[in-house]
């Protein structure tokens, strides 16, 4: 059964036409998939099918442990949104409910190679000269 409703699917296909550059989604799961990993994979497979600019690469948290380590992935399900480089965008847990909107917005931003932020916000962020790791906790909706 499709996780994305037909009506939403059509709308998303239209929205994703603004994607200019390739977006690569990398997901880390494991051989014996947990329920949340299955749900995440199912959702991402449907998302990747919405645009030919969006691809999905599946990785195994154990078999690809070194890659996971290099990408800073320490738990699963992990979803990474990459462009021609790693922007440090990660989702841990199922990107469903309200987080699905965030997932789509991040894909669009990476596809445009431009964050959808105000100029004022960008000015503030540009002053940061040391590594900053943000972990935004949310509750599933």
């Amino acid at each position, binding site marked *: 059964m499709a996780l994305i409703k037909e009506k939403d699917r059509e709308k998303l296909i239209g929205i994703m036409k603004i994607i200019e550059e390739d977006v690569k989604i990398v997901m880390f799961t494991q051989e014996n998939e947990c329920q*949340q990993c299955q749900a995440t994979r199912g959702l991402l497979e449907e998302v990747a099918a919405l645009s030919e600019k969006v691809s999905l690469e599946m990785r195994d948290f154990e078999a690809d442990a070194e890659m996971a380590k290099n990408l*800073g992935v320490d*738990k699963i*399900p992990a979803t990474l949104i990459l462009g021609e480089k790693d*922007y*440090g*965008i*990660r*989702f*841990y*847990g*199922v*990107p469903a409910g309200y*987080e699905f909107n*965030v997932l789509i917005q991040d894909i669009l*931003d*990476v596809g445009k*190679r*431009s*964050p959808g*932020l*105000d100029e*004022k*916000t*960008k000015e*503030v*962020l*540009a*002053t*940061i*000269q*040391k*590594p*900053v*790791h*943000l*972990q*935004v*906790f*949310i*509750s*599933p909706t």
Partner: protein
Amino acid sequence: MANDNISADMVSGSEFPFLVVKYNVSGVPHTVVNEEHGIAGALPEKDFAEEIVKAIGA
């Protein structure tokens, strides 16, 4: 994306309860900056950016 120094994770609290305990998260959204500073709630984006700068003492 605005600054290569910044990485951002979304963490689902229900799937990673040990992190909720570790970072003392009592409501959502809750943002942990560099493992030690907490920003509770949602803020307008510019205010949020300023809170991050304040948290790291840049």
